């Protein structure tokens, strides 16, 4: 008989269902399509970046500069548009800037060989600083109405915000690539043992460079979504998002030590955090409760798997003693 293996991700999905149930009980507004639309819009940027961060953490690296990259690509978009470049081209420039930011991180980590935690703390400051240098104290607010409307309205005849489209497309690609292709298997292999992966012929450095570049590009996409949603490009947006992204990825069952994780777990975690946020807001809890809950969930996500390991280890040793 095949034993059902209860993974952490299943727990996250159960948790999500519980949150939705509890939220519906707490407020009649929670389970409405209006609120669902709001939650999806609210988690959009974090979800898009989390797609790439999942790969990066599985491969045993980390990127703390994602919020600054998001911000710099938003600033570049605004700066280009303010200087007379058409909005469509400005968006491409924003995306390119994100990609370049990611490539710089990847270059420093893989070619120069620096630890990614330290590098991306550095580029966190660097990219945010460049955004300030680019825009100064003047945020760009006069963006074309047709584009801004995409950021705040729903897809016609549905309750889904437009940001769901990039999220769904990118999410589907990320899912398939991670779990059904060679690149995905390489990502896991690198995270489990980079040395062994290298000797098995996996181009470890090139893979890591590509993953950093992809994370930068996703942050760029999130930057465009962010710009449209807030109808503004300013140098002080999205501060601290990096911690939100990492918290969501880790709560979704990706191990910080690398080698373990799944994309649907991460997406369930992003939605859980969004749903909790909405439920707490509707129940008149302050934003502080959300901070405490996020932190507690993060702790639970490392404590519980660890406790299971310890428990199983004990049981095994008891069996062995008999």
């Amino acid at each position, binding site marked *: 008989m095949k034993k059902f293996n209860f993974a952490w991700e299943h727990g996250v999905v159960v948790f999500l269902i519980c949150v939705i149930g509890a939220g519906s009980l707490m407020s009649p507004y929670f389970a409405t399509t209006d609120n669902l639309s709001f939650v999806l819009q609210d988690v959009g940027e974090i979800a898009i970046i989390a797609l790439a961060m999942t790969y990066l953490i599985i491969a*045993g*690296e*980390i990127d*703390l500069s994602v919020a600054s990259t998001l911000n710099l690509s938003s600033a570049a978009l605004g700066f280009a548009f303010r200087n007379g470049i058409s909005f469509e081209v400005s968006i491409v420039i924003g995306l390119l800037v994100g990609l370049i930011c990611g490539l710089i991180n990847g270059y*420093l980590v893989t070619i*120069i*060989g*620096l*630890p*990614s*935690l*330290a*590098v991306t*703390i*550095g*580029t*966190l*400051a*660097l*990219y*945010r*600083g*460049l955004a*300030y*240098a680019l825009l*100064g104290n003047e945020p760009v607010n006069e963006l074309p109405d047709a584009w801004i409307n995409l950021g705040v309205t729903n897809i016609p005849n549905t309750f889904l915000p437009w940001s769901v489209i990039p999220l769904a497309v990118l999410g589907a690609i990320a899912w398939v690539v991670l779990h059904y292709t060679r690149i995905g298997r390489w990502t896991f292999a690198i995270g489990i043992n*980079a*040395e062994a992966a290298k000797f098995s012929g996996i181009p470890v450095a090139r893979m890591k460079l590509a993953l950093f570049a992809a994370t930068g590009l996703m942050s760029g996409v999130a930057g465009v979504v962010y710009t449209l949603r807030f109808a503004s490009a300013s*140098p002080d947006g999205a*501060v*601290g998002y990096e*911690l939100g992204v*990492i*918290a969501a990825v*880790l709560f979704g069952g990706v191990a*910080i*030590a*690398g080698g373990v994780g799944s994309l649907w777990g991460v997406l369930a975690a992003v939605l859980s955090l969004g749903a909790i946020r909405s439920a707490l807001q509707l129940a008149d809890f*302050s*934003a*502080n*409760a*959300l*901070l*405490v*809950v*996020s*932190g*507690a969930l*993060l*702790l639970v*996500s*490392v*404590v519980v798997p*660890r406790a299971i390991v310890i428990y199983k280890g004990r049981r095994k040793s008891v069996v062995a003693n008999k």
Partner: protein
Amino acid sequence: MRSLVQKALRVRELPVFIFLILVAVVTGTANHAFFTLSGLQDVLLGVAVIATLAVAQTLVIVMKHIDLSVGSTIGFTAYVLGASSSWGHGLWWGLGVSLGIGLLVGALNGFMVAYLKLPSLVVTLATLYIVRGIFNEIAAGDSITEDRVPRAINFLGLNTFYGIPLIFIIAFALMLVVGFIMKRVRAARDLYAIGSNLPAAELAGIPVARRVFLAFLATGAISGLAGVLLLARFNTAAANSGTGLELNVVAACVVGGVAIAGGIGTAYGAVIGAVLLQTITLALGALGIPQFWQLAINGLLLIAAISLDRYLSSRVKPTSIMGSN
């Protein structure tokens, strides 16, 4: 004599220190106001908080761990110290509670990292959130204004001793104490062993869990008491006090030669790193470079520092986010 020179050349903090002098000299020749007493005081006043936290963080980073929760802890205790009088308590009560908060957060981090063997990055990221959330709930939009700051703390922030700001003297004294302990006390030497080779440290009979726990406890306690300095420095405290400081602190350590890969670095280096970052920030202002560039240059400097360190050391390539094993 030669051996002294050779010894000096091997000091890890030397390049950073020379660079610091260079920055100061260049800025000073370009703008003479920078070399005045008030220019120096600005640097020392501005650096005291980060330097103190960096000294505490050194204890953790040499073990190849990290403590991201310090910004929340220091903000919380700065607020508690300011609010203690309006809650009907004195300064000593505030200090006691600040120490208690620091010890509690440190013990929590230490317990989970040392005994449950959980990754410190995740654990302290979680406590960063939790402490900030509890703090903001208690502060609830209230902010400490100048008139509520205890007189003794106000005094610390405004006064100097022979021209040196009192809060910097406190930070400096802490650096000397921690620096001495980390050089001379065996239990503190063990932290280096744990950071450079954990399995070897365990095999050598070092009580690793206890050491890790105590180091996190000490970091928490220092960060808690450092609330005094934060409150003294700004004379205000609010729900966002201390936000984001953790990254500045780690940056100061790394610039000062405390390797994120563990096993290397001193409290002196951490303080030099903090002073360098602060000097550059102020130097940019003195050189007339728009302050918008400050953050970017700080980031560049951090990357340059770790690149240089990587170039100078012949250690193996890093295999994890914390660097080489």
